[in-house]
Structure formats: C-alpha cells, structure tokens
C-alpha cells in the first residue's frame, strides 16, 4: 500500500496507514526524496504509529530514508514508534542511529520548526 504524503508549508508529512512491505518502504523513500526536491521542503515527518513490526530491513530503510532526505537539504524525523515496537527493536539490536525521532506528529513538527528557526537565526 502506498503511503500518502501531505505537504504542509515547508514540511512533508508521510503517514504510514498499514503494514508495509519492503517494496512499499523503498517506494516511500524514493517518493520522499523526489517530493523534497520538488517542493523545496525543509523537513519531513514520517509517522510510523501504524507499524506493528519494525524488523532489520525496515530499520535499515528508514535510516537510508533519513540520510537521503538530509542529502536533499531537509531534515527527517521519525515519529510514533510504538512502545512494543521500540522494545522489540532494542531486543533485536536495531538502532536508528543518526535518525531524529519524536514521540508523535505534534512533537515532530515542533522539533522541525525549532530547527528551522535556529538555522535562520544562525545564518
């Protein structure tokens, strides 16, 4: 199932609605990279609240997704990792090292606007 991506001002919001196959995840990564370029987005929030399993492939793809988005000049934040999923990831030895995370969509957007503000103040 394709993940819908919404444009909200300088941000993109990708909201995962159901279980994703490997192909769906790779598709999401490619779609986001394209849309960041097309809309000159400054930040991307990927909401994974609906994901009930995060295995090694999903973790690896999310990492490469965040890295790709960063190379396109935007910042990616993963939000909504369920407590059971977080626990399973730790047990499995999976980390999202180098990827920003936040509790939920609201926190994710707050974090992004803070970063945007800091960047503007700094430069």
């Amino acid at each position, binding site marked *: 199932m394709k993940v819908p991506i919404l444009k909200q001002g300088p941000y993109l919001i990708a909201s995962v609605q159901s*279980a*994703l*196959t*490997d*192909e769906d995840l790779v598709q999401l990564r490619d779609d986001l990279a394209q849309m960041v370029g097309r809309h000159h987005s400054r930040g991307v929030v990927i909401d994974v609240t609906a994901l*009930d*399993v*995060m*295995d*090694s*492939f999903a*973790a*690896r793809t999310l990492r490469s997704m965040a890295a790709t988005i960063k190379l396109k000049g935007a910042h990616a934040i993963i939000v909504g990792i*369920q407590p*059971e*999923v977080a*626990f*399973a990831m730790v*047990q*499995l*030895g*999976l980390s999202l090292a180098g990827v920003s995370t936040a509790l939920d969509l609201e926190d994710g957007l707050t974090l992004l606007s803070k970063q945007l503000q800091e960047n503007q103040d700094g430069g």
Partner: protein
Amino acid sequence: MGGNGTSAPVMSGNEIVINIKSDVDVVIARQEGRRLATDLGFNGGDVTLIATAISEVARNIVNYAGHGEIILSIVEESNKKGISITARDNGPGIPDIALAMQDGYSSSKGLGLGLPGSKRIVDEFEITSEVGKGTTIRMKKWKRPVVTSRSWV
C-alpha cells in the same frame, strides 16, 4: 488468485503453513504469527517480538532462497504453552552457520541482525543447513507464566 501470486495461509492439522515467495508473503506470515500468538494469550510485547522474528526468517527465505514456507503451530510441553515457528527452504543453504549467526554479518542487503537478532528474541532457536539443499530454522517462544502473587484479588 491475486496477480501478485501470493497464496492464502493454509491450515493443515494444527499447523498454519504460509508459502513465502515475495515481500508480501513476509507481511502475511508475520500477521498470521501475530494472530496466533494473540489467540494463545501472549502479551503485546511478546506478540511483537514473535511477529518480528517471523519477519526476519521469512525475509531470509525471500532474499536467499527465493521461496519456501513458514509453519506456525501451538506447542505444549509439561505445563508450558507456546508458539513454534519453522522456516524452511530448499535454497542454496548457508556454508558457514557460525558466521551467519554473528551480529553484523550479512551476505546481502540487511543489517546482518536477522538471524542473531531472531535468536535473541525467542526462547529456543535451532538452525540446520546444507549447502545446495536448503535451510531450516526452528524457533519456539514460551508463554510467560502468569504471576499470581501480583493479582489484585
């Protein structure tokens, strides 16, 4: 029936057999595992661990063997109950199991955490593999006993 060639899980005796040919089947297998584990009364954390372990071994089938099957069943031993997960394929086999079980080792795409990670999150893990013949992984996870002393009544 579907154009993508996936087949519905088959119930045979006490076993649920899921044919694994593509990444769609990986999702089906872990959803079946989640359902069975939930029916057995596993808690939410354990259900997620079971689904994750199934996802890892099912993906290994797709990545290395192309096709194979996942067999799920309920197991009972003395006074404990649990879920048994078998992943079987007739693929190329694993030449060096010790190496494949090392954290961070991967011969294809992945983090190299699939097998060692799965082993960590189940209670019993057994792998047999023969080069040119295939690989079988058997995993079991037991339901944790209910702690009656914590009961409110």
